[in-house]
């Protein structure tokens, strides 16, 4: 898949998953790689970039096993971006379906 498109799709996936509650990196990587064939390592650069852009806040929380985990919490700005990406995605898929003769 085109990497730029893939990055956009992965951003949308990450933001959408975080909409339903705070998650840590491993959790996000697992849930996405279960559905889409990606290298899990590609999630972390995206998380870092989105955090730098103010889409989420990061905090550490103790875990029952092992060291504390880095949790991501979506910000209002992140929600806004999610909505924008989501509407772009919906439009794109609708148009592509049209083009390739889905119906």
């Amino acid at each position, binding site marked *: 898949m085109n990497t730029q498109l893939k990055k956009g799709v992965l951003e949308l996936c990450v933001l959408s998953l975080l909409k339903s509650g705070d998650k840590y990196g491993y959790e996000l990587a697992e849930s996405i790689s279960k559905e889409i064939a990606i290298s*899990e390592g*590609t999630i972390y650069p995206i998380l*870092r970039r989105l955090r730098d852009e103010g889409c989420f806040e990061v905090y550490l929380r103790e875990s029952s096993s092992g*060291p504390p985990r880095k949790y991501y919490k979506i910000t209002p700005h992140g929600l806004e971006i999610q909505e924008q990406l989501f509407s772009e995605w919906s439009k*794109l898929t609708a148009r592509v379906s049209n083009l390739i003769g889905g119906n």
Partner: protein
Amino acid sequence: MNKNDYLNEFSSQLSSLDYQSKQDIISDFEEHFSIGLSSGKTEEQICAELGNPIENARQYLSGEKKVTFVHANKTANSATTAAPYSNTGYNSPYNPSQQANIPPRTNSTYTLLFALAIIIGIFFSFPVSFGFICAGIGICVAAGVTGAMFTSPALIAFFISLAVLFVLSGIILTMLNCWLIKICNRKRYTAA
């Protein structure tokens, strides 16, 4: 490939980033390993799932650039109504051809160190080095002039080694300072 090999290859690509960012990035991958291991996976399995360490690391480098691009885009567009994520699609924030417009980032810590190294060089280490070298040569000359009077070879050897010590410490001090200036100068243009 095990965890150590993976992280070594991974971090080898991140040398242009500053220490703090590098540590942050590596700690994300370390956390991934530790959670994966505690859920019963082997290090080899986790490495395979993470994917090519070099490619993953490179995404941070282009990622850092991209952040600059988005910020630049935001400020450039702040007066207009266009948002960085406009409805033109996914290509707008990611257009790689536009990344060429990013001004080189300067790292303020190293710029400060660079200036400091030059000031120390001018006001301290270069004059002191000069003094040391002059002292060394002076001792040599003095020893040579008065050498005829000293019949003791031990005394002459002492003067010569003293002179060599002065000259060497002068040269080393200058070299250290030049090295510091060079490193800081190189690093202040790498991405923060």
